């Protein structure tokens, strides 16, 4: 575990530094709009949602389109945004269990046939957890899961540091 957010391999371009930059920017924007103490629970709840979304979004943007899961997440955000703006696009948001497109269904079915019986359940569950996982075969799914876990841990680390910082400064 790195001790400070600045301890990155390549300060200018590592995933962690990119995420930190984006997330802090989003966070400052949110805190500027919504001062903490005078918020009603509604606002607070909304704020929480915004922060969570900002965190996930910052991470997804930091990864760009290099990964399937980040692409799926970004498209999810965009569709959600367009839905909010009134266009009512039909793409659903979190953890959709939509069946994969027909061309890929065959792949997944074959995979399941050849895989051990008990693993199908878990791979399905993993698919639900990892964004964009429905349309991946097992091999890619595991790969994406590894990268996703790595990014999530980075997210958690950074956020925890920020929370500690705020907590101490009080």
């Amino acid at each position, binding site marked *: 575990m790195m001790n400070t957010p600045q301890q990155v391999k390549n300060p200018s371009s590592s995933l962690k530094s990119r995420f930190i930059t984006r997330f802090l920017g989003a966070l400052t924007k949110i805190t500027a709009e919504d001062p903490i103490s005078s918020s009603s629970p509604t606002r607070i709840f909304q704020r929480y949602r915004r922060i969570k979304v900002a965190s996930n979004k910052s991470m997804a943007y930091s990864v760009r389109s290099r990964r399937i899961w980040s692409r799926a997440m970004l498209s999810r955000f965009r569709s959600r945004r367009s839905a909010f703006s009134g266009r009512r696009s039909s793409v659903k948001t979190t953890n959709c269990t939509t069946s994969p497109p027909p061309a890929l269904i065959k792949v997944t079915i074959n995979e399941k046939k050849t895989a051990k019986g008990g693993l199908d359940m878990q791979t399905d569950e993993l698919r639900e957890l990892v964004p964009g996982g429905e349309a991946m075969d097992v091999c890619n799914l595991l790969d994406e899961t590894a990268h996703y876990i790595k990014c999530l841990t980075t997210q958690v680390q950074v956020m925890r540091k920020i929370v500690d910082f*705020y907590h101490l400064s009080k």
Partner: protein
Amino acid sequence: MQPCSREMQAMNSLLSPTQQIPLQDLQPNGNSGTHQAQIHNPQFDPTSSHDDFLDQMLSTLPSCSWSDLKSPWDPPKSDETPPSNHDNNVGFHYDEILASKLRQHQINGGGGGTTAAMKMMMQQQMMLPGRPIAAAGGGGLTMPLHNDIVDGSSFKSPNQQGGEGSVQALYNGFGAGSLHGTNNQSPNQPQPFHHPQGGNMQTQSFGATAGTVMNQSQASGSTTGGAPAQPKQRVRARRGQATDPHSIAERLRRERIAERMKALQELVPNANKTDKASMLDEIIDYVKFLQLQVKVLSMSRLGGAAAVAPLVADMPSEGGDCVQTTAGGGGSLQRNSNGNQPSANNDSLTVTEHQVAKLMEEDMGSAMQYLQRKGLCLMPISLATAISTATCHSRNPMINKGSSSNHPLLQSNGDGPSSPSMSVLTVQSATMGNGGLDGSAKDAASVSKP
């Protein structure tokens, strides 16, 4: 005939143009081949891609070179030994052929420095028992091997990378291709030796000699280490197996999945499970845990201690773990381990009330934290009455703070898990409904889970 040429084609397609040069030149009609334009480009200079080229040459040539080389030679080269003389001495002929081709290639301005090593390498390779020869036409060399056993995805990358990755992928392709070729050649030509065994023997000895040759060559150390091991591994894996393309693809797939699982094992803590299913369970739990942590941390980022509990209702009780882990960080998230609050008698309550009131005057956040630590919460009076009527089994006195009242009232929730969440939800919905009620005042409705 086709398999060999396919191997050749696959190899050529796999190799970057740099490495495709020698084979082309080694063919009599190499200059008229389809790869001519690619091959006779100045890329083949001995200086920069020298080592890479050597590695790939060494790796790829042995597996399919002689057979493919032989095929285009049959028609035009009458002065060469006819293929019917085919036996294990064919390598010897190849030696000469290749040497001549090599010289020819040298004349063509190919890498000068490489030729000596190449020659040596080829000679060594030629010592191997002759590969089955197919009367393959020197057809289009661009046909990829993807229609063969191994999936094409692993072949794509060598086209872009040089070096080790491509070498390994080539070995993949060649191992499969060679066996496939071996099998398919049997009906085509009467060969004195048995194909599968011969193929295996060849590939094995190829691996051995390739290893030695590689060691002698100027290959970079890593590829030297990697490349000889690769064919040996591949051969061993395939040795007793049917050369069924499906089983090979299956095996590759399983290997890849095993690799990924191993990588995941390192990421996930408590990954000492050997069982695949339990490993997957661990992974799933860990991903859920991390997502939950992000949620919780984004809540605590709100700075103050307020309004955590309405959001706590959002999470299932499994969030207990992560709440505890972030207890140090997010003060607002501290789980109240005080357990159920005893029915507070009025005295202690009033004391607490006063304390909270005092704190509130100074700093809302600390007041909230104090409340939370006590396992108490704050809510508008109207709401509290609503809740008290709703949750009739609430044993504790419900104390509320009105929005404009100066008497801070505290509510303690000593009930089981169901009612806190219910009351939390009602708080949440109520406050959302009564936005105007809370708007001006400083109060916040927060219910903490006991």
